[in-house]
């Protein structure tokens, strides 16, 4: 054998993975696909202003108004 052909000989031939191994690998891929499908299917559309945000804004607004009222009430008016 010539030295130059060593690398070619090193290639050899390998047995194919069994049908069961291929099936298991395919199932894993299908699970990943299903996960992605599930992600897009289950994920609710994002509301522009979720309820919680609106409630928080309302509370903050009321608080600001109250503070302003208190401050203005406490300030000495023109006599």
């Amino acid at each position, binding site marked *: 054998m010539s*030295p130059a052909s*060593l690398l070619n000989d*090193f290639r050899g*031939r390998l047995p*194919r993975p069994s049908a069961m191994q291929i099936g298991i690998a395919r199932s894993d891929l*299908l699970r990943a696909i299903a996960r992605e499908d599930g992600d897009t299917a289950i994920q609710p559309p994002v509301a522009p202003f979720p309820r919680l945000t609106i409630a928080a804004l309302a509370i903050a607004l009321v608080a600001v108004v109250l503070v302003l009222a208190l401050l203005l009430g406490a300030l000495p008016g023109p006599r």
Partner: protein
Amino acid sequence: MDPLPADASDAALIRASLEQPDLFTRVFDRHFVEIHAFVQRRLGARLANRIATRTFVEAFNARAAFGDRNDDARPWLFGIAVKLVARHHRRERRRLRAYARRGPSLLGDATEVALERGSPRASSRELARAIARLDYESRDALLLTEWAGLDATGVAAALNCEIAVAGRLVADARRTVSASATTRTFPSHRPSTLERTG
């Protein structure tokens, strides 16, 4: 419904799978056995299933990044496989060295038996020893060429480097391995007149 013909290119399937994810299974059906064989050669049967499977799951998750690559997805898939194999590079080196020391009886693995086929045991062992000595990048480049059958363009795509760099890596690795294996296997070998003048 599967809108693409049976002979649709890998690239077309991958792009279409962005809208219809299950089309990606056709890419799996085309290339799984080849990726599996490559990983099995490098790391053995035990890890081959896990890594070949992982390759396709990662490819699926990253398919949006496939972009405008060539029609053939093999370099891309091999590139992912090589990154996963890299996590086990110590194991690969240990395997090659063990093979070089003791031959196929050590692991009793189909890979080693296959390596022996058609090649004198001593030369395969020297070759394994020489490949184990290569740095990781050179080993990847060489094995992507010899075992995965990629050309320089494919190796460059898999390793994410310039084509010229890939070509040089392969040429250097081939020269190093051939020289190393030849020296140890054929200690009395001298280049023939034809080789010297060629």
